[in-house]
């Protein structure tokens, strides 16, 4: 078995093993320590002795023994007798054999009591099988900081599984992980965790466990259709290339085909949720041979649906841009003017950036340049600021 396949196997198995032990003992933090030790044992033994036939059962047994040793050690001082019965009872065959607790584990890691940042870190560690060092690197914080954040999160969810979790919260965390990978560009590439790829892998796992959920399929489609454009999203020195200017031949055709097939599969099932609508919009962009040949009327209609499902200033902004593509810049600008009263938008860079684009479309060069400059001053993203500043400079010539 190649090293890569070997690591992949352990990463798939680790959350299942952790799920079994957490369910059994109700102590997430202790179970996690035990699983880490079992993984270490696997790393030491499997390459030389070969991967055991029932690799999942092997890991569960080893982690189980470690957990017992741990709890016995801790218990010895206090209640030497009372817990012996529960500990020594063998694990039921069904627990070892085929029950998959990965989804319960995801629910636990995306617990509503955790902040989103903590939920993301815990999910990547417990379900994604990433090391604390890798997660720290991906989020550009010192390893000690990330270790503390994860420990705090573990203490918060210490007591293990309770009532069935909220699938929406899980999907939201996975989407946040995806977006983190999609927008960040820092860090040395060799050691950098590919967060988008990890989010897609985890979403595939959730889909395997909950195939009936159309929103899970919608989220996976949205990720695939967005990630497909990644190779064309940035230029040689990391500069931002807007959708309209991207070289579409560099988009990942296989990912687009898979994403579109997923959209066609889940959409007719109804009721339609926001991830499916966003996936449908992404599919229309990905299918279009050029920005001009995009099916803008349908995108506009879909943004209307999205705005009813999950009204937000960003959705309203995107809808205004789609409206401009269908009815002309004046109509889009009128929609934007109506949004200017929104406090959340008024201070940010998105509104002036969208206004700048539509003003440029309308041929109002000086006004557009002014709006680009305002947007550039307000963004905290370097590639975005560079892009907006350059755009303003081109118009001012």
């Amino acid at each position, binding site marked *: 078995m190649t090293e890569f396949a070997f690591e992949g196997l352990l990463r798939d198995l680790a959350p299942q093993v952790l799920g079994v032990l957490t369910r059994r003992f109700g102590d997430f933090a202790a179970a996690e320590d035990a699983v880490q030790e079992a993984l270490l044992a696997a790393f030491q033994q499997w390459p030389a002795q070969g991967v055991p036939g029932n690799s999942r059962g092997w890991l569960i047994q080893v982690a189980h023994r470690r957990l017992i040793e741990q709890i016995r050690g801790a218990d010895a001082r206090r209640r030497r007798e009372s817990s012996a019965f529960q500990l020594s009872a063998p694990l039921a065959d069904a627990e070892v054999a085929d029950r998959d607790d990965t989804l319960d584990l995801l629910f636990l890691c995306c617990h509503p009591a955790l902040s989103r940042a903590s939920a993301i870190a815990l999910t990547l560690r417990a379900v994604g099988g990433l090391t604390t060092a890798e997660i720290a690197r991906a989020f550009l914080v010192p390893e000690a900081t990330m270790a503390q954040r994860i420990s705090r999160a573990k203490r918060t969810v210490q007591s293990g599984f309770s009532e069935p979790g909220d699938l929406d919260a899980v999907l939201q965390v996975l989407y946040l992980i995806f977006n983190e990978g999609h927008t960040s560009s820092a860090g040395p590439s060799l050691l950098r965790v590919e967060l988008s790829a990890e989010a897609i892998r985890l979403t595939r796992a959730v889909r395997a466990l909950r195939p009936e959920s159309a929103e899970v399929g919608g989220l996976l489609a949205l990720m695939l259709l967005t990630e497909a454009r990644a190779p064309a999203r940035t230029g040689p020195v990391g500069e931002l290339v807007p959708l309209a200017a991207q070289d579409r031949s560099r988009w990942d055709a296989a990912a687009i085909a898979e994403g579109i097939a997923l959209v066609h599969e889940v959409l007719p099932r109804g009721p339609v949720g926001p991830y499916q609508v966003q996936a449908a919009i992404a599919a229309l962009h990905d299918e279009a041979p050029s920005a001009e040949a995009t099916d803008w009327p349908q995108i506009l209609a879909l943004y209307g649906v999205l705005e009813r499902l999950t009204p937000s200033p960003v959705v309203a902004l995107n809808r205004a841009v789609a409206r401009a593509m269908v009815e002309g810049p004046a109509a889009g600008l009128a929609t934007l003017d109506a949004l200017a009263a929104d406090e959340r938008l008024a201070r940010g860079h998105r509104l002036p950036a969208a206004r700048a684009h539509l003003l440029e479309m309308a041929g109002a060069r000086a006004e557009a340049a002014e709006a680009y400059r305002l947007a550039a001053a307000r963004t905290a993203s370097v590639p975005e600021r560079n892009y907006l*500043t350059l755009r303003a400079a081109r118009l001012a010539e």
Partner: protein
Amino acid sequence: MLMMQFSQAAAEFPAIGTWKPEEVERHIAFMGEVNAALTEAGEWVSGEGLADPAELKIVRAGADGAPVVTEGPFPETKEFLAGYWIVDVESPERAIELAARISTAPGPGGRPLNMPIEVRQIMDAPAPDAW
């Protein structure tokens, strides 16, 4: 630590928003090359650009300890930090050499901006044999 200080009073160049596109492009490319060269040489530790000073907030604790927030921009603000690099270099001379290189970032007409770069040592724990 190399700090890129912008001083409104001492600035001898116009704001970047008024430059020609190719001037902006050259400036951005220069900064990218500097960062790549620092990484290549093993001297890069970290670095950040800071958002526009118009977005800054000044916070003081009020009498009861609660935050009192004052929002920018401040007309009296004469200098602000635009960004910084933390580098790990062999000698103070090398830090000064790097600062001079960064200072030559091209501006309008491709001419070096010669902007002031503040160089400061980051405090460190004493060496084991220092005490």
